């Protein structure tokens, strides 16, 4: 449970290689941050972890992604199950075209849970992300009416309601105002010990605040991976030092 590892992962977009031989072992029930300049393959790596890359037809993936020791790219693996075990919080909040309640309940309904259970989990989930008091009177209202920060919290509730073991965050605070971003960060910090969180960010300070483990990427290659303390205090690679000192990127 909760373990995710990448072994010799290569990804091509058409003829162009986006990820070059990546090998990472994400620590369980900790926050791992993937940092690097834009276009370095952070998001590609993240989306290869729950096979969302396949939505793009020109993509070719080689290598293994091990979820609890089983390769999710192996033939015969059920993508739907993999994706329900690995949640994704996208960059921009994207409510589904339905009401606030239905948004959170969507994944639960797919799993075929009964009405009472769904109502209970939805409430607990909205409580957990701190949205319950704001929306409890208008659960039937369209989710598009919420503010950006509220929408992102709703999306987090929706993702967590499915009960994933792994949570992927793709620059999930980048499109939010500072206060909402702070709220999401606090939530993620609170989830630290319950989920394996893997977040992509271009904000070094955010990684410093949140991460237990940091992975630095540069032009599709993994340059350095280390526990956060070591990474920020004594980066080993020259590129990492330059990046942290904001000389490059």
């Amino acid at each position, binding site marked *: 449970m909760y373990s995710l590892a990448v072994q010799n992962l290569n990804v091509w977009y058409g003829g162009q290689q986006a990820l070059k031989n990546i090998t990472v072992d994400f620590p369980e029930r900790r926050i791992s941050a993937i940092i690097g300049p834009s276009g370095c393959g952070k998001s590609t790596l993240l989306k290869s972890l*729950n096979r*969302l890359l396949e*939505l793009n*037809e020109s993509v070719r993936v080689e290598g293994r992604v091990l979820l609890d020791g089983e390769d999710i790219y192996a033939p015969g693996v059920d*993508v*739907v*199950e993999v*994706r*329900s075990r*690995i*949640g*994704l919080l*996208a960059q*921009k909040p*994207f*409510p*589904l*075209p*339905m*009401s606030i309640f239905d948004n959170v309940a*969507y*994944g639960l309904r*797919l*799993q075929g849970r009964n009405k009472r259970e769904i109502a209970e989990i939805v409430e607990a989930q909205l409580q957990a992300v701190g949205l319950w008091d704001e929306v409890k009177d208008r659960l039937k209202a*369209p*989710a*598009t009416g919420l503010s950006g920060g509220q929408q992102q919290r709703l*999306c987090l509730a*929706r*993702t967590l309601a*499915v009960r994933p073991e792994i949570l992927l965050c793709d620059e999930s605070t980048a499109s939010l105002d500072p206060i909402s971003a702070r709220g999401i960060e606090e939530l993620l910090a609170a989830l630290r010990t319950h989920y394996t969180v893997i977040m992509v960010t271009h904000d070094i300070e955010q990684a410093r605040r949140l991460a237990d483990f940091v992975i630095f990427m540069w032009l599709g290659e993994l340059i350095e991976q280390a526990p956060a303390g070591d990474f920020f205090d004594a980066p080993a690679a*020259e*590129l990492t030092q*330059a990046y942290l000192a904001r*000389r*490059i990127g």
Partner: protein
Amino acid sequence: MNQQSSISNLQSQSGAKGEGRRAERNRQSPNLQSPVSQSLRLNRRHLEERIFVALMRLCMVGAAVALSMILAVIFWRGVGALSIEMLTQPPRGSFYLGGGGGIANAIAGSMLLALGATAVAFCLATPLVLYLHAYAGRSRVANWVRLTLDVMWGIPSIVYGAFGFSLMIVLGLRASLLAGIIALSFVVLPILARTLDEVMRMIPRQLAETGFALGATRLEMAGLLLRQALPGLFTALLLAFGRGIGDAASVLFTAGYTDNMPSGLFAPVASLPLAVFFQLGTPFPAVHARAYASALVLTVIILVISLVAHLSMRRLGRHVVR
């Protein structure tokens, strides 16, 4: 700092600088572009713009006049012969000689034909388009399907009428509501499918990502897509219905024409466009006036459909993510 990257940085900087210098030189060299010649050139460019804008305005006005004249002429000539009797009664025996009665048979027939054809097309087009978007993506076969639909859209409805007629002979059917619906479905199907296809193409990619990330199967994804496309689907249905009600050539052979009210799937039915056409075919001015009134009824129906489609876009779009 990484050597390579710093070099490439330097190169790109010098490149930018070089270009800047070149541009400066251009600006300074007097024989290339003096301020005078440049402003002359600018004048010419503005003149060209003005000419074309005037031309476009002329086209707009011309078209607006011609097209609004259509509506005006139809209204003007049609209103005179319009009466409650026209709308509520089928033609009596002497209708085509100027006697009493109305076109209720044609109104009901047209409605049934268009409704039936739209329903048939809906049952085929919606799953088809959902399949194209949830399963097939941009595959080769999907492109073939789109091309097929485009070609089907282009095929004249008279051809579908002729095809439907042949089909009737093979099946031993006579001109009937059913045959009319079948032929009309061919006309409506590509319109509905392609419009829906365009609507679904506008759906942000993120919807698919979100749905799949929550663990939806492709079939469940199709349900999500449908939900997002609901207002578009409704508009497409209305559009298809409008096209179906206005089409005459496909039902000419297949639905036949009758002065009775529609009485069943296997009985012939009248339709509004054909009512207009046949009334015009008589030599009596009084019947001609009724043709104008029938055309007005048809136009008003289309007008209402357009209006509803336009307004419903907003009402139904409540949940839609933009």
